[in-house]
């Protein structure tokens, strides 16, 4: 049986009290609960504090460029769909540098789990505003506060009919672990945005700030109801809803490639006969 210990225990480079710690635990828990062995799992990340997470989990890892985790994960999934692929990165990585890939991934709907550690700030580069920072967030780089409106990724994802959209909070570890487990189990792109306090640079959206606002969705909420999901998705303020907000059963990206019907690309040998036929077409 797979246990959380199989996923290892590493020294981290995070600040004491960082909201990333509970997320790391939740991911390991969810992987173990999904009965996946480490070698069946591929963790892909970009660059940032959140993006270091894979280095603290005993699994296959590709830690690539800032903003580019989603395309790497998509490529790996196409090449070897048997891998359970989990993308882990920060709000800056996924919504700023990687914004275009975020849109494209929702439209493609590959079977990936996308965990966005949303601390509403750029942690690793020491505290600039991120796309999710709120208007009155003042930093060295934004001394007058934000010049842009904050990005509500959950709302955009739902309005694009992403196939699985959830929100968790790093302060509610078990709830989060269960969301991640569900996300992994779901076939299609599963976005789990995790509210994550950054104790070093975000003095606005603290543990207390989130705790006061976060409310787990009532069991009546039907994630397959688009209108209801949309309503929930726009809620952000005094109340921030947590849980599985929206889910559908759209066609999964990999399923559209007939070449994959014969098994993963990686195991398919080059068919010399067919190649010869192809060459003959040029005669």
């Amino acid at each position, binding site marked *: 049986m797979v246990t959380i210990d199989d996923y290892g225990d590493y020294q981290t*480079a995070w600040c004491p009290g960082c909201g990333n710690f509970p997320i790391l635990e939740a991911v390991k828990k969810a992987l173990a609960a999904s009965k996946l*062995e*480490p*070698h*069946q799992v*591929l963790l*892909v990340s970009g*660059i940032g504090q959140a993006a*270091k997470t894979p*280095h603290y989990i*005993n*699994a*296959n*890892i*590709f*830690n*690539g*460029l800032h903003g*580019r985790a*989603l*395309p*790497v*994960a*998509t*490529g*790996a*999934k*196409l*090449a*070897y769909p*048997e*891998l359970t692929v989990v993308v882990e990165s920060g709000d800056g990585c996924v919504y700023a540098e990687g914004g*275009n*890939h975020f*849109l*494209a991934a929702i439209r493609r709907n590959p079977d990936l789990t996308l965990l966005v550690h949303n601390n509403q700030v750029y942690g690793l580069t020491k505290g600039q505003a991120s796309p999710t920072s709120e208007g009155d967030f003042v930093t060295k780089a934004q001394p007058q506060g934000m010049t842009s409106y904050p990005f509500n990724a959950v709302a955009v994802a739902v309005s694009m009919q992403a196939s699985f959209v959830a929100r968790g909070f790093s302060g509610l570890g078990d709830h989060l672990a269960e969301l991640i487990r569900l996300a992994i189990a779901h076939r299609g792109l599963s976005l789990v945005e995790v509210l994550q306090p950054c104790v070093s640079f975000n003095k606005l959206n603290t543990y207390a700030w989130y705790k006061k606002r976060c409310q787990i969705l009532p069991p009546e909420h039907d994630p397959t109801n688009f209108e209801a999901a949309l309503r929930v998705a726009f809620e952000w303020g005094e109340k921030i809803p947590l849980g599985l907000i929206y889910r559908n059963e759209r066609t999964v990206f990999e399923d559209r*490639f*007939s*070449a*994959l019907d*014969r098994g993963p*690309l*990686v195991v*398919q*040998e*080059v*068919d*010399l006969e*067919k*190649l*010869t*036929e*192809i*060459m*003959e*077409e*040029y*005669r």
Partner: protein
Amino acid sequence: MSDGSFNILIGGEAGQGLATIGELLAKAFGRGGYSLVTTSTYESRVRGGHSTVALRVSAEKVASPSESFDLLVALNPESAKLHRKELSTQGLIILDEAFQVDDEACIRVPFKELAKGKFSNIAAVGVVGFLLGLEEQSLLGVLVDFFGKKKPQLAGENRETLAKAFRWAAQLPSSFHRKLTLISDPAPRLVMNGNQAIALGALSAGVKFCSFYPMSPATSIAIGLIGKARQMGLVVEQAEDEIAAVNMAIGASFAGAPSLVATSGGGFALMVEAVSLTAVSETPLVIVVAQRPGPATGLPTRTEQADLEFVLHAGHGEFPRAIFAPGTVEECFHLTRKAFELAERYQGPMFLLTDQFLADSYRAVKPFDLKSISPVQVASEVSALSTPYCRYTITDSGISPRLLPGRSERLVVADSHEHTEDGHITEDPSMRKRMVEKRLRKLEGIRAETIPPDKNGDVNPELLLVSWGCSKGAVSEAASRMRSEGMSVSTLHFSQVWPLISEQFRHHLEAAKEVVCVEGNATGQLANLIHRVTEFQMARRVLRYDGLPLTPESILRELN
């Protein structure tokens, strides 16, 4: 022409089916056993403007475009005017009888009678085919094969048009005939362009993944692969941008699928960060850069060879790479294979540098001996590894044993930071130093596999022409024309432009009385690279950078 080649120019607007005429004729001549080269020029638009397809055919080997023509197919009146001066003395113009063009050389074809509007181009094929001595049956065969797959419903109407045109041409006075020497028992030939050969080369190497963002003149490589994706078991995906394309390919390659991306300079510019990622993560990747004139958007549909230094130095940090520059369609096939082999062996980025001219140029080539070649070897044997498995084990060759994620219980950790042997982030200066050195050591292996340049002609020539990539044919023909005038001219052609190994060719440069580089750019980039590695200075340079391909004529003009 004097050298025995016959040169046809088809001129018209975008949308008039010039490419189809060119392809059909090329295929027909290829089946007839002729050597051929096509050259396409077109504007960055879909309808209108001015396009040309030039077709050079010969019973002897031809390898470059020509600037003078024996037959001009003018699909609009402008073309007749524009290209009149390029017509040889015995030259003919084929055009619609309705055009108001006043020229003796004209064959006025009643296209309206012969073909319904959009089949004029097929009628033109028929007339040209007859005049050059192609057999009706063979042309019909080409037609069926060409339309058969794409649009079977069209094949019928096309057959009829073609037959009519043939019959019409048959009643022309024989002074209009330009029958080519018949080749008996023609050996089998493939008629393909540079991009098609790259796609086929990639398939033969075992490409399993290609992601791309459309960009002329690279797009048709991906399109060529897409058509075969189901058959050959590969995935081709159009990405949201070039950054996604290259990162997807890196992901796929990491997971074990030999991967290719193809783009042009501007698209490649967006891939530069990821080039650096392939190097540090040690992920195999083949990158095709099909050049067109810059800077920026430049001339999107024209040709140039001005991205050599850019590709050579693309990416932050220091790491090895190889750059291949095919000069022929055959080389497009073989060098693509070689790029895949090196990418997999040395686990990093390998480049193929082509350009619009070669990408779109059809040639008749010997079928490739697919039996004697094999796909690349992906990853290492699991049994040969020590435990624990370290993705970045430091070795003498710089090459670390590579496993694929999920294919065994061993975990594969790849990282874009500087890392320890097991792939995790480190900031230790001594580990950093060892890893830099490990990666750079791969260059030794890559250097040992470098293809030497191709030397042709006298050992101690009066004149040595140095060239690279797509200008191969033009340069070799310019040289042979000069030779036929009694001059002592040799050529030195580079199909691999990096690494450059001085010992492989310096003596050739020194043995010549004068050395001139011939390049499709404004600064002489290869000449500069050669100077770097040999200190040999080519004072004279024949450079073309107006968007058109080098031709023997253009080279001879500059040399005189």
